[in-house]
């Protein structure tokens, strides 16, 4: 789970042109996507057995 403070730390470094890499940003975005996909599975009352979506399905 990517926390808001991690996101804001990345924001500060990008805005200040401090050290960051595109790999690092991509990892953060993909983590946010995974967190969002995980939230689709949260409701457990449904009897549906639909296959969960994961990040690889989107790329």
């Amino acid at each position, binding site marked *: 789970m990517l926390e*808001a403070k991690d*996101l*804001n730390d*990345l*924001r500060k470094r*990008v*805005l200040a042109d401090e050290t960051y890499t*595109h*790999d690092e*940003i*991509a990892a*953060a*975005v*993909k983590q*946010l*996507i995974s967190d*969002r*996909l995980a939230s689709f599975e949260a409701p457990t009352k449904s009897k549906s057995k639909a296959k969960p979506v994961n990040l690889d399905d*989107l*790329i």
Partner: protein
Amino acid sequence: MEFPRVISSSIRESFSRCPQKFFNDTIIGLVPKGAPNVHLAAGGAYAAALEAMRKEFYTTGDYDLAVALGMEALIRAYGPHDPEPGVTKTFERTVAAYVEHLVQYPPATDHVRPSQGIGPRVEFSFTLELPYLHPTTNEPLLFAGRFDQLADFNGALFIFDDKTTGSLSKWWRQQWDLRSQITGYVYGAQALGYDVIGAIIRGMSILKTKCDTQEAITHRPQWMIDRWKMRLFYDVERMLDCWTRGYWPHSGEENGGCTTYGLCNFYTLCTAQDPSHYIDSNYDRMRWDPIDREMKESQE
């Protein structure tokens, strides 16, 4: 004071809503002092993210780099300012909207893709001459527009624009069927020789706890474009008439424009008997340039 050399949809809408507002923001060139409008900052940052992401993905196919460049563009466009407490369109929620777009419309399977020219046609701009002369330079007035993509959808060409909003109302889709901005985009692309048949508008609502999406597909038959063109010319003639007379009616007093999109930026001036006393303390002299797409300092 300066009459605009370029008419855009937003400049025209400002005039239609209230010529006095147009006088203040476009003729004098005033913007309120202080932090940038958070709604504009969030919308601009979201658009910048999608533009950078699409440009990279539809050129190289590199998903990781594309989503990273999108996030980097979002951060730079949103900037360091945080809105006051209670405002929904925070930096974190703008990031959430970008992530929601990547989840709902993964670029590899998105049913709408930029058409290809020399590269993917994202951030499409046009500038056309109008049959009117600028009142002080005597050069032709121009009509300009910019939209997010010239897109391929189901084998046809469409204007494509992303929009952010607070919430998606019941009539969100229908609003685009008549929206003059969209008709202007279709007219502009057709005038450059592209056989565009309509527009696709993708909406993203940025709320405190979730983001929602909707998509509207709307067509523009020739009669509607002709009607739009007649109205554009009518509006330009009214602008020139106001300039000649030196009179800019306060139409917001009748049509509710003073509070339609929050409180009008020029409420302070319009509620004063002599507005000139309040200009320097409340406003910077800046003007939006629709071709260069940046704020430029305006002369006193």
